């Protein structure tokens, strides 16, 4: 079985994202870029499935600028077998990304497609589900445990009410949540080895995909700030303040 893993290039999660003063976007110049952390967890899980003998090949895919090669090379250094970069210089919205992934799925015929549950830049949490819909295959989102056997994935999902378990027949789409695993660290020899692994590049236009970019963004603003309130001296002061607000 082959596993296709999506890796989105995003602003590193440690960077404190700031809105440009003119409201035209967020500051990206000179900002560290990384693999979307949820996608990194998806790749780790795919690698573990390969190491367990469930899968034979792990292919990483990114849709984005040429510079996303860096993230794919990191994915190869983690252990992916080969990489595909679908080059797009403009913003790619979830429906377009899903259509691109569908065209790759038709070509590659994976048994599983694994993505992060959301990208930490646009926070949409849509691409995986959209791909599953267009592909007409099952989806198991927000996975915190994945067991694959006999053509069936048993997936534990982190839902608001607790942990939900579903079974899906392969091929299927899985999006992963934070607690599924801890991705491995990349070692220097692996980085050297990754340079020799195949990385195919193709322009988005070549795939014959119709763009699904329908959302236009007109203004960016920093979030409203809460104001500092009052300080009280002791528990009685706290009780009095809560009474004032009608909360006790």
């Amino acid at each position, binding site marked *: 079985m082959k596993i296709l893993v999506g890796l989105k290039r995003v602003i590193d999660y440690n960077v404190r994202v700031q809105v440009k003063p003119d409201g035209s976007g967020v500051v990206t110049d000179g900002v560290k870029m990384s693999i979307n952390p949820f996608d990194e967890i998806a790749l780790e899980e795919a690698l573990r499935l390969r190491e367990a003998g469930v899968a034979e090949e792990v292919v990483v895919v990114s849709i984005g600028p040429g510079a996303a090669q860096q993230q794919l090379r990191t994915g190869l250094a983690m252990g992916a077998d080969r990489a595909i970069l679908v080059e797009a210089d403009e913003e790619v919205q979830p429906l377009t990304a899903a259509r691109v992934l569908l065209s790759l799925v038709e070509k590659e015929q994976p048994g599983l497609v694994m993505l992060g549950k959301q990208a930490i830049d646009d926070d*949409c949490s849509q691409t995986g589900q959209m791909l599953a819909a267009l592909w007409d295959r099952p989806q198991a989102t*927000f996975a915190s445990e994945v067991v694959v056997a006999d053509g069936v994935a048993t997936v534990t999902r982190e839902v608001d009410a607790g942990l939900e378990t579903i*079974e899906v027949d392969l091929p299927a789409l899985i999006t992963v949540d934070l607690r599924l695993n801890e991705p491995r660290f990349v070692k220097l020899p692996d980085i050297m080895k990754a340079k020799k692994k195949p990385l195919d590049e193709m322009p988005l236009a070549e795939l014959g995909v119709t763009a699904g*970019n329908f959302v236009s963004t007109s203004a960016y603003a920093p979030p409203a700030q809460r104001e500092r309130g009052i300080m009280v*001296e*002791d528990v*009685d002061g*706290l009780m009095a303040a*809560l009474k004032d*607000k009608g909360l006790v």
Partner: protein
Amino acid sequence: MSKILIIAEHDGQALNPSTAKTLTCAAAIGGDIDIAVFADSVDAVAAEAAALDGVSKVLTVETSGNGFRLAAALAPKIVAMAEGYSHILAPSTTFGKDLLPRVAALLGVAQISDVMAVLGSHEFQRPIYAGNAIVNVTVPADQVMAGTVRTASFAAAGAGSSASIESAGSAEAPSHTRYVKLEASGGERPDLQSAPRVVSGGRALGSEENFDIIYQLADAMGAGVGASRAAVDAGYVPNDMQVGQTGKIIAPDLYVAIGISGAIQHLTGIKDAGTIVAINKDAEAPIFEVADIGLVGDLFNIVPELTQKLA
């Protein structure tokens, strides 16, 4: 004029409060509002939905074997029902986040996730970068607007009406997807996501045993219990209690942060709370920058005293 279909969320017996909040967002868009209730047994949930103020009618769809929990079962039926609607909304909970993109893709339209304000019938505000930036987004008026609604941004609509209830048939889960089970978390206490009062503890509690004083205070207040990521990572409490950017984003009327310093990632999860109370021994802790009421001191003295006075 807009015609809006809301997909109700429920647990099989009762409507989830997120549905009434989604309704408030729909009312801000304006127009006719219908609610679709997918359930194995529709009657009780449909009656609750029909009582919500501002609903034109409730459409019921029968499922079986917990099919109402599965996006693959619901999405094709919602697409079949979409004719004539200008907007399809669901709460931005794990239920709505799982379901709505599957609907949008089948309709061939974009989705707006986490609507936090309505600027016009097709223009909305939503957060990106974990709430570090807010954007105004517009979708074309000539296609169905699919959106999930950030429940922390809208108050629940009132109840006291009686809309008509109509059957809209049934929906079957495809054979490729099977519901197995749900292990509910939290036990007897109010659900963290929807509780009007929440008490959270941080790393300063020091141990799993010490966290008991948080539970005792929460029980005295009838509150749900949360925790900071530091407390979760230290193993004091399970993952599903984490409040913050990578955990649960909540908006209770009252939030009490105990021994929580107030890392950005935590503050992102509580910034829409009504009143924030912070108790911390470090007067310089960032949590005090956002707290409405702050108390500096030793939580191991303060929390039992507060519990006693509230009991």
